[in-house]
């Protein structure tokens, strides 16, 4: 079992719901302080978004943040270098599009993540059928390959996805890109289908924008991922202490 999955299973066994905030690496020069603030406020793991020029799964907020980070010269190497300044005790999970790792070389990229202290990776445009090489490379470096299940995923695919999935399973609450929240979504149904196939921890993401939604999501899931809301605040100039406050509200809501 990967270190990440072992850790997240222990977290679940302790009765604590996981709060996983998402940040775009390199969005501001002090982005590392946002990560630290989130952990201080009770984050159990942090998603590190590696910016890509063509983020197909992301809405306008993360698109803009990615472009801003790229304009500032952010890349896999600069992120790894920034992360040496980070000292937090929670797992870090990379989230990006496959071309970043493909171009870097999958073996080299998995190794780079591992040496940077990243123990999981989410690659939303890499489905089960195309992922074998990446999954194998990650397994060699103890990087957990987190896979997504969507409301449209049929039950037989859910089983196959869960078999290849490591760390936790990402239940997307709605058929939408990131940052477009309208209603409670279908997260509970997706979680139910994953539970029927596997006992891997399940976190809900895509469209969790209020502490109340996070609370509701955690009645079925083992945790939540909060992304666009925080990224939007940072785009609008939020400081580390603003971030800490926001994450703290989510922490209170799900405890």
């Amino acid at each position, binding site marked *: 079992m990967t270190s990440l999955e072992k850790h997240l299973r222990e977290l679940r066994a302790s009765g604590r719901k996981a709060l996983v905030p998402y940040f775009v690496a390199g969005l501001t020069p002090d982005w590392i302080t946002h990560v630290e603030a989130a952990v201080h406020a009770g984050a159990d793991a942090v998603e590190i978004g590696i910016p890509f020029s063509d983020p197909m799964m992301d809405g306008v907020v993360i698109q803009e943040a990615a*472009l801003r980070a790229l304009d500032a010269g952010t*890349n896999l190497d600069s992120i790894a270098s920034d992360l040496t300044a980070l000292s937090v005790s929670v797992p870090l999970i990379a989230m990006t599009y496959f071309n970043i790792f493909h171009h*870097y070389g999958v073996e080299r990229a998995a190794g780079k993540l591992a040496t940077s202290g990243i123990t999981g990776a989410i690659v939303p445009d890499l*489905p089960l059928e195309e992922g074998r090489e990446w999954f194998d490379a990650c397994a060699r470096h103890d990087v957990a390959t987190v896979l997504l299940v*969507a409301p449209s995923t049929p039950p037989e695919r859910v089983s196959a996805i869960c078999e290849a999935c490591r760390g936790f399973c990402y239940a997307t609450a709605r058929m939408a890109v990131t940052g477009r929240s309208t209603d409670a979504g279908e997260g509970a149904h997706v979680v139910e289908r994953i539970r029927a196939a596997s006992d891997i921890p399940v976190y809900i993401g895509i469209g969790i924008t209020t502490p109340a939604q996070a609370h509701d999501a955690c009645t079925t899931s083992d945790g939540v991922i909060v992304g666009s809301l925080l990224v939007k605040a940072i785009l609008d100039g939020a400081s580390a202490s603003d971030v800490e406050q926001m994450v703290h509200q989510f922490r209170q809501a799900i405890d």
Partner: protein
Amino acid sequence: MSAPGALGHFGEFGGRFVPEALMPACLELESAFIDAWGDPEFTAQYRTVLREFAGRPTPVTPLRRLSAQLGIELFAKREDLAHTGSHKINNVIGQTLLTKRMGKQRVIAETGAGQHGVATATACAQMGLECTVFMGEIDTERQALNVFRMELLGATVVPVTSGSRTLKDAVNEAMREWVTCVEDTHYCLGSVMGPHPFPWMVREMQSIIGHEALQQMDDLGASIPDFVVACVGGGSNAAGIFSGFANTSARLVGVEAAGGSAVGKGSPGVLHGMRSLLMQDEFGQIEEAYSISAGLDYPGIGPEHAHLADIGRAEYYAIGDDDVIGALEVLSLSEGIIPALETAHAVAWILKEAGREIPLGSRVLLNLSGRGDKDVAQVREILRGQQ
């Protein structure tokens, strides 16, 4: 050209790199396409609509004056004479018929120059489908008349303001939209790109160009050409005409825009649901393409073209903006045909290489993929600027 492997691979290219939310839709589309394309009733209907509505078959025209000037035997397959002024209608008729067969009511599409958007809006109007077209904001400005055409045809045009605001961003936005409405909406992709089954399906729906041309060349007593030349952005018109000649001795030549040269300057990468050749920087960020023609302003190429280049069955060359206007003028003056700026790249390559890469006396078939009416305002501006 044959069908791809089960997962949509052409050699090491192709595949299906899409978010899980879109996987079921891609799988559904694949089986719907296989079912329809194997159904004689469906293909008969497709051919009937192309004949009755789109003006097929398009002729092959011997370009006699230009042939004499260049010392070669030049023919043009006249896709500019198809309804809406380009080959795009072939694919769109096929996909909208398929949309209806799948029981979906709405179509979304991306467009660069506007040719695919206009063709999609046209087919949707004819078949009573709702239509939304995503178009980069820069392209809506340089092809404003095509925006109005689409609106006249009842389509909603959504200007895309993200990224480079051109074709690649229009594809991103169409994919994002598709995730939200995949139940009742078909994404009518306009080229031989994107996730499986699109590269294969669009090539099949464009292969009528090559099959007609093969027969027509024979009817003209011209038999197999030495060269088959087509412009390439994503590569649908080239894939269509190559289909008729892949099993012959003809050399297959794709002509890219120098500023969007995925074969010339690209390396393997993953974008828009496919593994193909892409223009990208050292960290895998996709580079912006720059071309005088909005339709070739794309940093990638269809995966089957990447494969044909890889195995050496087709050759790809790049033509810069500077040569394109001259080629458009030459074809207009010597043959009475104003080509689209995209097509003018293929013309420019022939003008440049006749007597060099193309030996004198060679028989050359040009795919005249589109007419230049949409570009005349832009060409006028450029020519005025040169005076």
